[in-house]
């Protein structure tokens, strides 16, 4: 509801490419390391306020299917282990209090959890930093091929 001349960024400004890479690159490494069975995967520039204007962060959302007969908790742990190996640290960034299994790299936050509405499915989300000052529509980009390819 309020326009401002200069968006208040959470750090030095990042380009669209940097914003995208900050979340898509680790997502790609995770999917390939664990061999996640993707139902869907999307990237978008997500507005950090609910007004749809800058600043924007990169956001990856992944829906996956648990392997047939797999123990869900063990499988989530397998994902966490792969993330740790890729430089993620346990817990949410300082000051953040989300529900869900949280991991962080600096201020980038990942949430991993089963999907409570669908027992066979799980969710991975990766939230980037609010450091993009360009204009974006918030449209979702299908990145399944990019993550698995």
């Amino acid at each position, binding site marked *: 509801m309020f326009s401002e001349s200069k968006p208040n960024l959470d750090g030095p400004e990042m380009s669209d490419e940097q914003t995208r890479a900050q979340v898509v690159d680790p997502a790609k490494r995770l999917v390939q390391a664990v061999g996640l069975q993707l139902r869907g995967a999307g990237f978008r520039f997500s507005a950090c306020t609910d007004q749809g204007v800058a600043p924007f962060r990169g956001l990856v959302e992944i*829906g996956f299917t648990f392997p047939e007969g797999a123990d869900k908790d063990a499988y989530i742990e397998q994902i966490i282990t792969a993330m740790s190996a890729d430089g993620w640290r346990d817990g949410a960034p300082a000051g953040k209090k989300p529900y869900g299994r949280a991991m962080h790299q600096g201020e980038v936050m990942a949430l991993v959890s089963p999907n409570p509405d669908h027992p066979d499915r799980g969710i991975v989300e990766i939230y980037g930093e609010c450091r993009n000052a360009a204009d974006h529509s918030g449209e979702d980009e299908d990145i399944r091929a990019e993550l698995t390819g």
Partner: protein
Amino acid sequence: MPRPPARPCDDEMRTLRGRGVSVTVSTVQASRPEQLVASATEIGTKIAALDTTMAAQRQALAQMRAGWQGQAASTAIIKAEQNLNRQEELRARLSALRQALTTGGIQLGFTRSGLLTTVAMLRAVGWQVAEDGTATAPPLPPILRLMAPAWTAILQKLLAVFAQIDAQTAAAIQAAIAGPVPETPPGTLGDPRKLPSPGTSPEDVKSWWDSLSQFEKSQLIAEHPPELGNLNGIPADVRNEVNQAVLQDDLARVTDVADQHGVSTDEVLANPGAYGLSAADATRYTNAVQTQKGLDKMASEGKKDRPVMLWAYDPLAYHGQGKAAVAIGNPDKAQNTAVVVPGTGSSVKDGWLESENATNLYDQMRRGDPDETTSVIAWMGYDAPDSPTDPRIATPGLARSGGDLLAADVNGLSATHEGGPTNVTVIGHSYGSTTVADAFAGSGMKADNAVLIGSPGTDLANSAADFHLPEGGQVYVGAASSDPVTWLGQAGPLPDIINRELGYPLGLEAGLGRDPAGDGFGSVRFDAEVPGRGGLPDFGDHSRYYDVGSESLRAMTDIANGDGSTLADNGLTAEGRRQPHIGLPDQLDLPGLPPIGLPDWDTPIPGTPALNDPEGDRGTVTNDHQY
């Protein structure tokens, strides 16, 4: 000879007489119109009994359809349906009869008493009144004779009117008993094909819906009248089916025409008239597209796979800004339901349904309490001010009318809720928090807890007590110390004055009532700081309460999951804002004179976080940051 001016109704009377209607003063005197009214009342009782019987038969029929198959079943069902149809016919006739008797009885009663009073008055002063209404003056004084034609005209007119009403009533009774089956008023149990009128209570709407057979229900859903999808008391899954069908109609109306003419939808929308459509059709399409985008985004197919329902949909509402509510999770089955109410600048047209407020809350509620069923309703059900420059933002008018609509929708939830108790939380942001406060304080909204975030003031509610929450219910408040909108409600006229003097930097949104985060409001304030902010005002911080990971969303998640009482133990509560005052002493002591009393002239100072907000300098959130 010219016709006397006092008798303009001769033609009418001749016509009546020509039909063989003959009513005399004695007939009128002997009539008992009040008996018609009494009969009507008796018939009303019979209709009520018939309604009960029919409701029971409908339910029995529905069970029969559900649980009995085969040839014998079909025959029995057909017979039962025929029986019901006959009863419906009887009910419609009784209802029409009651109406005819009531109307006739009342009208005849008035006419009778008018006629008899006039006759008695004339006779008392020596006039003679014949059976046909002819008035003859007494011999003296002779001048009275000149008035005789006028009195005769009046009396004969009254007799004619009586005869006319009598004939009409007789005809109406005849029609009710033996004519074609009369139309019944909408929403009566006697006619399942008609919807209850808009003012019907959700409980009555629910009874009506339950009284329908499965076949009748399916038929109504297939017809998808738009009112059915917005009617409180109709189960959410039915509303969803109906609204989705209406939305598809709204899309197809334009895309079909575009296909037929081989042009783009944009071309059709630019000139709807050239393609046989109206401007309203174009508006419906535009808002249908926005609603569909919102539904798709909330569903997040393949990723989050959220269960979404279109719980309310009226694309032409609010001058084309549209009305819609999307429920994530079925509110009729949910143990925890949260209603998310947006503020200024939000509308269907402007794409609020695509915002992440409701989805973030839903995801966090499910993760916080995966074993409890959840529903979050993204409620774009009122006309929010368009922008900070919308003059309507300066007044609480839209909040109050929005409060009425919100209260009706929220109060309707209980009528269709299944199973055990439900925990309902209503959350308002910005101007939406004023709407929520007004819904509780002014419109009788019933919910377990209120959450106000980024509130510019609570208008009708002067304190938490005005929310009339049930025992254990709280007004929870999230107000970031760096959100300038929340400084506005702090007290008194000063925010308004300062805002005006500075040229309305905050828009006109000043002075919408008290600040619910103030320490005297009686609310529970929760932490809602934006990480990395040092208490400096930032309008962006007015719009980050639903940020995933924020302490504000964490607190709202716990509240909406029914765990608000754990906030303090988890270190999520905040101290209220202190409101320092510019105070004058109560009295002036002057040497040698008695003290002089002074008026109560305390003026609260509008707050700045550094001065009076304990949240403005919290180390954990504001300092522990990477830069």
